[in-house]
C-alpha cells in the first residue's frame, strides 16, 4: 500500500506539469491584450505598455513564457498578477473561503443525501421513496445557475432566512451557496445510496444474515449498509475535488471571495499567472482526493488490494 501511494504521488508531478502547460497555453491563446485592459478607460502610454510587456515576458513565444513560469515555480514562486500582487498571496486569501464552502457542501451531501438515500432504500416504493426519486430528478435537471438565483430569491429575499451574498455571517453565509453547490451531488448521493442499499438487501449474504437469526438491526446496518456505503463513500471522496472546481459559478453568484470567483475574474482580465496557479491547484486537489478515495476503497473493501 505504501509503495502504491508513493507511486501515485509521483505520478501527480507529470500530470500537474501537463495541466499547468495546457492552462498556460489556453490563457496565452485568449484574444485581447491584458496590459491594455489594465488601464481601463484611460489608455496607458506606449512606454509603460512596452515596459510591462517586457517585465511579464509577453513578447516572448509561449514556450519561453512557460519556462520562465516554471523557473519561478520550482523556487516556490507562483508569479505575480499584473498589479504586482503575488499569486500565492491571492490563493492564501481566497482558498479558506472555498474550503469552507466545499466543507459545507460535503456536509449537506452526507447529512441530507445519505439519510434520504438510506431511508428510501430501506422503504423502497414507499411514499418517502417516491418523494426522493422525484425531487432528486428535479434537482439534477435544473441548471446550477438557475438553482442559485432561485434559492437567493426564495430563501434570501422572500423568506429572509439566509444571507444571499458575502461571508459576513459565519456559517450562515455558507448555507445557501453550500446547498446550491452540493445540489447535484446531493441528489446523486441519495440515488446511489438508495439503489446500492436496495440492491444489497437482496444479496445472498443478507439472506444468510437473516438465516443466522441476527436481529433485524444488525442485518440492515452491519450486513447491508456497510456494504452499500462503499460506492457512496468513494463518490463523496472524489466529489470533494470536483466541488472545489465547481465553486466557480456558486462563488460568483453568491459573491464569495474564494478561488472560484478569483479564477472567474482573472479569466476576464486575462491574469494568466493567477489562472494558471489556481487552476493547477484545483487539478492537484482533484488528483489528491482521487488518491484518497482509492486508498479508502481498499480499506473499506478487503477484496481490493494494491501492489
Amino acid at each position, binding site marked *: 500500500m505504501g509503495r502504491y501511494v508513493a507511486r501515485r504521488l509521483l505520478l501527480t508531478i507529470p500530470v500537474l506539469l501537463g495541466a499547468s502547460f495546457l492552462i498556460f497555453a489556453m490563457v496565452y491563446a485568449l484574444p485581447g491584450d491584458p496590459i491594455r485592459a489594465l488601464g481601463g478607460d484611460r489608455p496607458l502610454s506606449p512606454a509603460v505598455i512596452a515596459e510591462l510587456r517586457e517585465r511579464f515576458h509577453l513578447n516572448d513565444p509561449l514556450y519561453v513564457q512557460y519556462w520562465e513560469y516554471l523557473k519561478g515555480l520550482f523556487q516556490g514562486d507562483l508569479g505575480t498578477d499584473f498589479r504586482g500582487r503575488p499569486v500565492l498571496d491571492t490563493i492564501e486569501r481566497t482558498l479558506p473561503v472555498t474550503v469552507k464552502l466545499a466543507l459545507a457542501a460535503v456536509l449537506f451531501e452526507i447529512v441530507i443525501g445519505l439519510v434520504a438515500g438510506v431511508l428510501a432504500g430501506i422503504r423502497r416504493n414507499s411514499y418517502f421513496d417516491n418523494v426522493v426519486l422525484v425531487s432528486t430528478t428535479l434537482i439534477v435537471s435544473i441548471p446550477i445557475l438557475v438553482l442559485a438565483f432561485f434559492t437567493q430569491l426564495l430563501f434570501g429575499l422572500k423568506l429572509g432566512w439566509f444571507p444571499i451574498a458575502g461571508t459576513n455571517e459565519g456559517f450562515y453565509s455558507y448555507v445557501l451557496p453550500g446547498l446550491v453547490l452540493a445540489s447535484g451531488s446531493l441528489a446523486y448521493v441519495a440515488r446511489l445510496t438508495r439503489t446500492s442499499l436496495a440492491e444489497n438487501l437482496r444479496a445472498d*449474504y443478507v439472506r*444468510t444474515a437473516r*438465516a*443466522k*437469526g*441476527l436481529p433485524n438491526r444488525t442485518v440492515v446496518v452491519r450486513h447491508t449498509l456497510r456494504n452499500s456505503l462503499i460506492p457512496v463513500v468513494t463518490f463523496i471522496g472524489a466529489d470533494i475535488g470536483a466541488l472545489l472546481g465547481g465553486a466557480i459559478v456558486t462563488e460568483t453568484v453568491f459573491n464569495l471571495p474564494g478561488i472560484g470567483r478569483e479564477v472567474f475574474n482573472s479569466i476576464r482580465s486575462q491574469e494568466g499567472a493567477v489562472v494558471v496557479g489556481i487552476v493547477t491547484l484545483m487539478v492537484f486537489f482533484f488528483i489528491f482526493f482521487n488518491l484518497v478515495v482509492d486508498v479508502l476503497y481498499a480499506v473499506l*473493501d*478487503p477484496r481490493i488490494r494494491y501492489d
Partner: protein
Amino acid sequence: MTNLDLTKPTAELAAQGTPLLEVDDLRVEFRTRSGVVNAVNGVSYSLGAGETLAILGESGSGKSVSAQAIMGILETPPAVISGGGIWFQGRNVLEMSAEDQRKIRGPGISMIFQDALSSLNPVYSVGFQIGEMFRAHRGMSKKAARAKAVELMDRVRIPAAARRVDDYPHQFSGGMRQRVMIAMAIALDPRILIADEPTTALDVTVQAQVMDLLKDLQQETGMGLILITHDLGVVNEVADNVAVMYAGEIVERGTVDDVFSRPSHPYTDGLMSSVPQVEAKGGRLRPIAGQPPNLAAIPSGCPFHPRCSRRRLGAEAAPGRDCATDVPPLRLVVPGREAACHYSEEVLGVAAE
C-alpha cells in the same frame, strides 16, 4: 421463546416421540404484478432427530422456497405463506412472533446455501461471521466468539484454522468456503440443518468431502438434516428418505432405496432414466420430454400430465382418474410409499387392489 427448550439434547426429544419438524400442507405463493406464482402447493413432511430427508426436484419445483419458508427468510412481499403450518418441536412457527422466530434461526434450525461465495459477506472475515452466531444468540464477547470460531473451523476440518480465522471469504477455495458456511450453520448445535444444494457449486471430489463432513457432523450431534438437491447421486449416498417435488408439490415419497430402485411416479421414473448408468454403457439416456411447468399457470389435473408418457385422458382414463382433469392426491401405494399418480400401481408394476 416461552416453552421452546433448545437446551435439551436432541436424543432425549427423540425418545419422547416428538418429531423435530412437521410441515403440514404448506403453501407459498409469490404475488407479483404479472400475477400469482404458486411456488409451493400443499407440501407435508416430518423430520426426526438423526434423520436425513432429501428433497429432490428440478429448479422451480419449490424445494428451496419451502425450505426458506421453514427458515422464515422468505422475502415478504412478494412471497406469502398462504396456508399450512410448520411445527418445530411441536410449536407452530408461523404463529410465533417475529422475534421468537428469529431466536429459532441458528440454535433451532439453521441453513447452508448453494453458493458460499455470494452467501458470505465479502467485507467481514470468516471468523467474524462465524462468531456472530455466538454474539447474537449467546451474548458472547467479540474475543470469545473469535475463539469459538477457530474451534468450529477446526471441527469442519479447515486446515490452519487459527491462522485463517481473520481471512476473508474470497481468500478461501470453494470447498473451504462451503466449510465456513457449515461451521457457521452448526455453530449453535442446531436441531435441524437445512442444506440447500450444498455441493452444487463444487467440483466432484470436493462434493464428496463436504457430504462426508455433513454426515459425520450429523452422527456426532444427532441433528435432523434436510438435503435439498437435484443430484440423485448425493441423495443416494446420504439420505434415508426422499421426497420428490414437482410444480410445488410432493409427487412421491419413501425411503431412498425403495424410491430409487422402483419408482412409483412417472416423474421419478423419468428422473431415474435420465441419469447415466455405468452398467448401461452405450444405451441412450431417456430425458423427460417438455419443460417444467410455469408456476403461474400450473396445468389442470396432474401437473405432470403434459409431459407424462403414461397419461390417460378422456375415454382411456378410469372414471374419476383423468390425468388432465382430476388432481391425483398423494396416497399410499404400497406400505412405506406414497405417490401422487392415478396409475402408480402400473408404474410400480403391482396390481391395483
